């Protein structure tokens, strides 16, 4: 039973649970806890599917007289597990090397084309009308880049909000969070995944950076900055797929009470613990005992 149960848990955590949870607004009230929640879901899915593959392998070599349909089903489960693991390592290497190369090249160009901004060592201003602001996160020498078109469309406080937002991304290495989700996203074959974990983690990271900016400038400059940069004239081909701007602005318009934020953090913590602990304690650990027993008595 263990392979089927773990396989079912893994698939549930990979597809329907994230799809349902992405419609809930409450995890966004406490974004840091929300990231933990999404990471736990993804990790639990990988663990369950790996467990399913391992337990299947044991069953296949120890069952004296397996029915053909069960053999087919179990080989399928094991195949998915092996596939996810292989894709996971391939994606980890690929994401890491691809992003670090693209960032290195991008930073070289930015340093040659951009002007330093005032006394801020990591900020570069590009002479470009298209209003863009972004950061190039790196361990050494990260950059915050803003176009002169963006500077022109922002008042001083709003500009400060943008810079604080981006510096918070760089300082707290939000890129590592996004890369981890990028790797997990690619680890699951297309039919076995939803965009929800990656998309939701992107939103959470933006909300965390927004909170860092709010602490310095307050809500209104940040709101003006979001509208100025997201609602500006559309450069051809620059439409982002799905946007966080409205979610971010609505949060500034209707701030949650501290109590609601605490409740959200607690709920995220509880769900994270449940998805990680329950399958481990009730399925994986008993199976492990069983496995040791079987292998020792043979």
């Amino acid at each position, binding site marked *: 039973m263990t392979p089927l149960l773990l396989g079912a848990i893994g698939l549930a955590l990979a597809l329907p649970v994230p799809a349902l949870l992405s419609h809930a607004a409450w995890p966004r009230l406490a974004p840091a806890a929300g990231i933990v929640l999404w990471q736990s879901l993804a990790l639990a899915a990988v663990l369950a599917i790996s467990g399913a593959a391992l337990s299947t392998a044991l069953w296949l070599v120890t069952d004296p007289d397996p029915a053909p349909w069960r053999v087919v089903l179990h080989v399928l489960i094991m195949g998915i597990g092996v596939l996810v693991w292989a894709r996971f390592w391939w994606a980890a290497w690929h*994401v890491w090397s*691809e*992003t670090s190369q*693209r*960032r290195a*090249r*991008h930073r*070289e*160009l*930015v*340093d*040659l*084309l951009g002007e*330093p901004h005032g006394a801020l*060592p990591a900020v570069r201003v*590009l002479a*470009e009308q*298209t209003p*863009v*602001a*972004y*950061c*190039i*996160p790196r361990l050494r020498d990260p950059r915050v880049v803003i176009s002169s078109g963006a500077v022109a469309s922002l008042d001083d406080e709003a500009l400060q909000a*943008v810079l604080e*937002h*981006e510096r918070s*991304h760089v300082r707290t290495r*939000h*890129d590592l969070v*996004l*890369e981890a989700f*990028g790797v997990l996203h690619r680890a699951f074959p297309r039919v076995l995944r939803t965009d929800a974990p990656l998309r939701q983690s*992107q939103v959470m*990271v933006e909300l965390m950076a927004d909170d860092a900016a709010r602490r310095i400038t307050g809500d*209104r400059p940040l*709101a*003006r*900055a*979001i*509208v100025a*940069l*997201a*609602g*500006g004239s*559309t450069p051809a*081909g*620059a*439409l*982002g*797929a799905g*946007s*966080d*701007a*409205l979610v*971010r*602005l*609505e949060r*500034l*318009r209707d701030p949650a009470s501290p109590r609601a934020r605490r409740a959200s953090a607690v709920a995220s913590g509880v769900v994270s613990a449940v998805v990680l602990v329950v399958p481990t304690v009730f399925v994986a650990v008993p199976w492990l005992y069983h496995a040791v027993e079987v292998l020792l008595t043979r």
Partner: protein
Amino acid sequence: MAPSSRSLGSLERSVMDVLWRASSALTVREVQEQLEAGGSADLAYTTVMTVLDRLGAKEMVSRERDGRAFRYTAALSREAATAELLNATLDSSGDRTAALVHFARTVDPAEAAALRAALEEIEAPGTP
């Protein structure tokens, strides 16, 4: 005294500006002269050469042999470099990992209107 990496960075920018303005390939000496004409303080010949080497390693500068010296040109024009930068910046294809983290992506007109309406409420007098 060896320049710090910070000032090497700004020297790289100045050297690229010289090469982008130049109509033909330049020797190290010519780059040095133009930098000094452009107001840079006295620069050692070897410093200029170091900067050109660094730019060559980044594939921003290419060099060709001319008799006993090398002549240097920008490997890509300022316009091409800007275009490459902007393409990477505005690239929003979904499955590629975000090498850059944007402040806010441009939205469609309907969403922009919703954004402005929300902003009006936030900035309305009387709200905290």
